[in-house]
């Protein structure tokens, strides 16, 4: 199974490039079983939203 360190790398990259199907599946599987990474993903989405709102987005 993918570990958390690898999962956090992919969760960052999914904000910058489309993940391959295999990567998406591996990440989804990991996050189903890992509450820490599940929260991490939500928090990265929040960071992006916060920064975009700061940058004049409506």
């Amino acid at each position: 199974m993918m570990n958390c360190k690898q999962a956090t790398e992919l969760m960052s990259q999914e904000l910058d490039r489309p993940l391959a199907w295999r990567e998406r599946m591996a990440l989804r599987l990991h996050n189903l079983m890992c509450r820490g990474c599940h929260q991490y993903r939500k928090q990265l989405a929040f960071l992006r939203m916060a920064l975009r709102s700061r940058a004049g987005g409506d």
Partner: protein
Amino acid sequence: MPIDEQIHEFVGARRADLVRFAALQLRDPALAEDVVQETLIAAMQGAAEFGHRSSVKTWVYSILKRKVIDALRTRRQEVPVSQLGAAVEDDDGCEGLFDQRGFWATEHRPHRWADPEDSLEQQQFWQVFEACLDHLPERTSRVFMMRELLGLEVSEICQELAIVTSNCWVILHRARMGLRRCLDETWFAR
């Protein structure tokens, strides 16, 4: 209200925000003031063509972003990015977060943040947020802000800074990891 008055009103009310936005990225308060000044002039000159395609806020920020990119470019000719702050290989910003097998160390495992959206309305939150951005290594924050504040694509950033794509991803990952950790410890842990 005529468009030039709307622009005046917006800039009057939000000037400090605009200057902080520029200063975060340029790390030079005087230059940030100049860039905002130029932005205001460009906005007034372009008022006629603005029409109502977007909100005044979105429009002024789009001009400001272009001006910040120009300023970064001009300055890069004076200070090569390769000389900025820590090199990529220095430290990965993850030390201590994971155990030997690469799983979250118990004390660092992320927990749910309470009502993060409410934080956005609080001025104090933004002070903490900006302090956390400032704590990132200069090169890391430069790349991160080009991506998240200026909205550039990774390919554009790589080209602009002459770094390879995979390096860009690593830098962005570290920035997010560092910013998340800082906010977690200084804001959401209260």
